[in-house]
Structures are given as C-alpha cells and as structure tokens.
C-alpha cells in the first residue's frame, strides 16, 4: 500500500489540446478516490498515467514517494480492474485467484490460505472449484478484482468503470461486495466512473472532472451541499441543482420579490456583481398555510415513483423540485418554500462564501 503523488502531471496525445491539463494531485494511502466525469473528460488518461499504461508528457508519478514515471506497469505493483472482466477461461476460480501467487513462487499451503481468505471476502467460496468459463459477467468481474487483491503487497488498486458491462440488477450486489472488500483491505483505490452513484458510494473523496481538469475535489457530502461551480452543481444530483438569478434589494437577495438570503451572506461581494442562486430540487417545498412563499406556476410533473419531479416557473426562470408522491399540490399557481440556509451563492459561475 502506498500513497500516490502526481507531480505537475499533464498529458496531450500529440496535439495542442491537453487531454489532461497540468495538475498536482495527491492520493493518500489507504483511502478510496473516485474520478468522476463524462466520457472524454480525462479521467481514464489520469488512471492510465498512474498505472503506467501511458507515459505523461509532463511531470512525475510518485508511488509511496518513489519516482515511477519511467517504470513499466508490471513493475509498479499495481492491481487493475478493467471494464471487461479478464479471467483465464480454462482455469477454475481457485486457479484464477492463485495465479498471481504461483507466479511469485508462494508455496501451496500459503496460497490455499490466502485464496480462501479472498474468496471469503468476495463471497466466491462456493465457486472455487468451478470453471471460470461458466460464470456470469459479475462473478467474472469479482474474480478480476480478487486476482488484484490476492497479492497482499499491492501498492494501489485501480478500477476503470468495472460495472459498465454488468446487468443492471446485478450491479447492486457487486457494488456492495466491492465496497465491503475495500473497507476490509484498505488499499489505496482509484476508481474511474461516469456514474455519480458509484463514485459517491465507494469514495472517501470524489474528483469531479471536466475537459481535462479536476473541477472539484471533496467528500460526497461536500459535492452535494456545496458544489464549487455550476458544472458540479448540475453534474451531481439527479436532477441537478437549479440556478436562478437573484434580485438584490436593500442588501437582501430576493426571488420574485420574496427575500431568500439575508444581507450578511452577501458581505464581500461587489454591490454590482450578478449573483446566481443555486438551489437543490430537494430543498424546495410547497409553502403551507399562511407561510410566505415564492409565487410560482406549475408547468408539469414527472412521475418517478416515490417522488415526483415538478417543473415550476418562477418569473422567467424554470426550477425543478422534488415532491413526495403522497404530497398533494395544487395545479396552476403555488407558493414555494426554499430552505434559506441550503441556498448557495455563485458569482461568475463560482461558489462564494
């Protein structure tokens, strides 16, 4: 196990545009990180630089403090799980898991103990004597993971969209087993995905990426509660954060005339700056009784099951709100209650305060 340090790393595939812009990144020992972003954002490039499949055009890669920039993948002692499961079809599950240890010349009894441990961790014990050929895709993916974990001295575990080819209803089970395995082994893990659910479930810290840059790095909670810019606000959450322009009147920030945020939170913002309010759909509700609310008209409602996603118009802006199925709400006009302390302020697209 080791920490990973990307020292002024950057990469371009021979063109002027950097697939990964110059950056300094530190991954702590024993923690799990997710690189999250749409396809083409540079997340796989970063992963391949760590694993050594790609030599960066700039900077150094340090593994546990040692410079490995020019070291070949095989010598970096890194375990990797890819999109498509890699298993030796002709071998049994046991032989698959034992293979890396055989290569290292471990003796038989030691291998048996270690393989049994890993099989137990991944819930593969009952499959050990089966041929790997007949397994389902999710089981094969577990074996790929197991082959990485079985070496107890791996420096880091890298996973590149390992759930992409897994059937949707098997994903849950696989997510759980991967997370449990991670929690117990405490490797340094870097996990690449486009799926916020996977990223936020596995990772201690998520790095949201866009166009070759890390736009925000934080815990899942931070990303949800305080997205640093409009991109992250929209990318995290389903549906993403609402953004509406606020009116500034007597220091207060108002939405359609109704004060939402007090003057104290605007301190330090230039008086003529344009402020955009970021409001999560989860933090908007219908005002009850005599409560003061932002006047809105209901445009449409989408049935998502337990929740409805309701489209409302406030002035010329459109907002999304989430409403529980059992809440009855009026058609046409309504008043909205917005939790003031959950509202975030953005100036020039960047979070302030």
């Amino acid at each position, binding site marked *: 196990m080791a920490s990973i340090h990307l020292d002024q790393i950057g990469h371009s595939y021979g063109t002027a545009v950097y697939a990964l812009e110059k950056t300094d990144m530190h991954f702590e020992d024993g923690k799990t990180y997710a690189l999250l972003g749409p396809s083409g954002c540079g997340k796989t490039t970063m992963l391949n630089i760590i694993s050594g499949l790609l030599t960066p055009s700039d900077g150094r890669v340090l593994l546990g403090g040692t410079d490995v920039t020019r070291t070949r993948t095989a010598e970096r002692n890194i375990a990797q799980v890819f999109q498509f499961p890699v298993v030796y079809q002709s071998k049994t599950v046991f032989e698959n898991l034992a293979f890396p240890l055989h290569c290292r010349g471990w003796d038989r009894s030691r291998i048996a103990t270690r393989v049994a441990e890993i099989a137990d961790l991944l819930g593969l014990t009952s499959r050990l004597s089966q041929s790997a050929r007949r397994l389902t895709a999710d089981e094969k993916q577990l074996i790929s993971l197991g082959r990485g974990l079985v070496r107890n001295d791996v420096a880091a575990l890298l996973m590149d969209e390992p759930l992409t080819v897994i*059937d949707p209803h098997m994903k849950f089970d696989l997510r759980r087993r991967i997370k449990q395995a991670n929690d117990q082994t405490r490797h340094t893990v870097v996990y690449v995905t486009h799926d916020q659910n996977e990223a936020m479930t596995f990772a201690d810290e998520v790095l949201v990426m866009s166009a070759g840059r890390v736009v925000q790095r934080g815990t899942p909670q931070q990303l949800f509660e305080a997205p640093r810019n409009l991109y992250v606000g929209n990318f995290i959450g389903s549906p993403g954060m609402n953004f509406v322009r606020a009116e500034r009147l007597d220091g207060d920030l108002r939405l359609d005339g109704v004060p939402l945020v007090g003057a104290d939170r605007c301190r330090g913002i230039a008086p003529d700056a344009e402020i955009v309010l970021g409001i999560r759909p989860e933090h908007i509700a219908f005002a009850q009784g005599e409560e003061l609310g932002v006047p809105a008209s209901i445009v449409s409602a989408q049935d998502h099951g337990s929740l409805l996603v309701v489209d409302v118009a406030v002035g010329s802006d459109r907002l999304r709100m989430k409403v529980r199925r059992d809440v009855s709400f009026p058609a046409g006009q309504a008043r909205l209650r917005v939790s003031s302390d959950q509202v975030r302020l953005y100036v020039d697209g960047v979070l302030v305060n």
Partner: protein
Amino acid sequence: MSLILDTLHLSHNGEAHLDGLSASFARGSLTTVLGRTLAGKTTLMRAIAGLQRIDSGTMERDGQAFGTLPAWQRDVAMVYQQFINYPHLNVFDNIAFPLRKRRLPEVDVRQRVESVLSMVGLSNFAGRKPSALSGGQQQRVALARALVRKADILLLDEPLVNLDYKLREQLREEFRGLLTSQSDGTVIYNTTEPAEAMMLGDRIIVMHQGRILQTGTPAEVFERPANTLVAGIVNDPPMTILSGRLDHGRIVFDGGVELAASAHLKNLPHGLYRFGIRATEIEPSEGRGIPGRVTFSEVSGSETFVHVETPFGEAVMQLEGVHQVTDGSQIGLSLAPERLFAFAADGEGALLRAPGQGEN
C-alpha cells in the same frame, strides 16, 4: 386497441423467451415494458418486428394478422441499445434511407429529414459520418431515422442504457417530448429502470420470464403492485418485504416487535403475511422500532440508500440528501403503519391490501 398480441410463444434452444404472452396496445399511446435483463423484453420486440419467428400465437394490427409477414413488409421502426446506424452514410443519408427506399420525392425527403434533424438537434451535423459523432449523438441519429418514417409501430429497446449517467438523464427528457409527438403510431419502450418506465409511459407492462405480471398506468402499477415480485421490479431501491403476523389489530414480527395496524389492514383476517414498505417510508428511529444492522449504504447523487439487516428480512431505507452512515452500525427503523402493503405469505405473494385501500 390497434395492436393485439395473443398467446405468443417463442423458445430458443429449449428455453422459453415468450411464454404465452398476450397484450394489446392503443394507437397514439406509449407503453413502457419494465423488467429485468432476460425478462423477454427484447424478444418481444424482435417478434413484433419480425426479426424472430414466434412458435405460436397471433399478432394483429387493426384486425389484420401480420405475424407471417417478413420484417421488410411490416411498418415497424426500431431503436437498439447499441448505437446502430449505417456507417458508410452520413447523418442526412442515414435518416433519408428509409424514405428513399420508399421512393418518396427527393423534395419531400429533404424537407422531412431536415425537420427531424432539427427536432433531435443535429442540424449542424447532417454531413458527418456516424463514427464522427459522440454516443449520444449517434443514438439521436438512430432515433431520428426511426421517427422520420412515421412508422406505425415504433420500438425502442433500452435506447439509453449505454450512455453516460448524466446524458441519460438529459436524453430521457428529450425522448419524452419526441416520442409523444408520434401521435398516430404505437410506441413501445423497453427499460429496466422503474423511474424511466414511470416517467415515459402512458401505460406500463411489467414482464418477468417471458410473461406479463401486470399491466396498468404507472400510478396503478406503482401503487397496487400485483405481487411481491412486481413490487420488487417497480421500486428502485426495491421494496422491503418483512414477514410477520396480523393478530388482533396488531402487526407482530417474530421476536416481539409490534406495530398497531392502521385502518387499511385492520379488517384483514388474522394470520401470516408478508408486509411490504417502500424505502422512502422507512425512517431511522432512536432506540425503538425494528432493530437492525447497517450492511451497506449507497449514495446516489442526491439520496442515500441504507441497507439494513433485520431479524425479519433485509430492509432498505432511503434518506434525502447525502449522509455518512457507517457500515456495521446498529440502527432502529420506524415504519409508518399506514404505508404498509400486505401480501399473501404463500405462493407469489399476491397483493391483499395496499395503503389507502379497503378503508371504509
């Protein structure tokens, strides 16, 4: 009802993919077919399209049986999971292909293709080859080619499943608008995601192992799932099902936890039941309620799903927002008694009472 399928059977290598399936579809309606992988959804579409031959059964369109017609004589368009376009034709020619095949005047072809291109937002990409487009754009081209024909039957087989999470969310809404513009045809849309099925469909068909478990409006299927299996399929995360006993107006779980049965369950006969409750109706409670141990917590973008092992079965609780819940910690769950579903304890677990049902 303009499309009627009657007791379709189709098996391949001795495995039944369609097992006596009957269904009917109205003109101008969008039906979503919801089911897990291998439920037979794709086979159903291929049978309707004529790409796979049924062993027995009949298919009728406006009273005309079409089950024996070859695929190219049926007026069916399809969008696949994979982004399937003609690689050697540019976007415009791809979309124009079905029209030119029907020998439409080139003026009409041009006008219709251009109108569809602007609908899917690809007007500026007409001259590109599909390989020079992103996945989302390729799937838009495939949809445009299916829309431009104004086909009588439009089939979409999990069209968004291979796209990035956020793009999927965006296209789902676009598709909703585009598909409802197909006023006269019949649209069938396969999905494994309950929210997608509910949001897009005028009607939902729940499929499992080549059979239809339930048909109804999204609200009907969601609020009155026919049995525990349907309840599992139409809820994401799946509905929690706990075994218990109804006894003198009390719900008793083995081990002594009791709840007062709310009005809708009171007049059920005493005995064993499976009680179902949605993840959104379970809340953490301090020291009371059903005791359990957290086995796993998942964070989606804006919700936290907590999986809890209880003495009566596994429960899933949904919390609003992003929360840190330590795996392995002890927790108490409180269930809202008025939100409980009662299913039969035996057989398929048929629905006996849903919340808000049977109160008098």
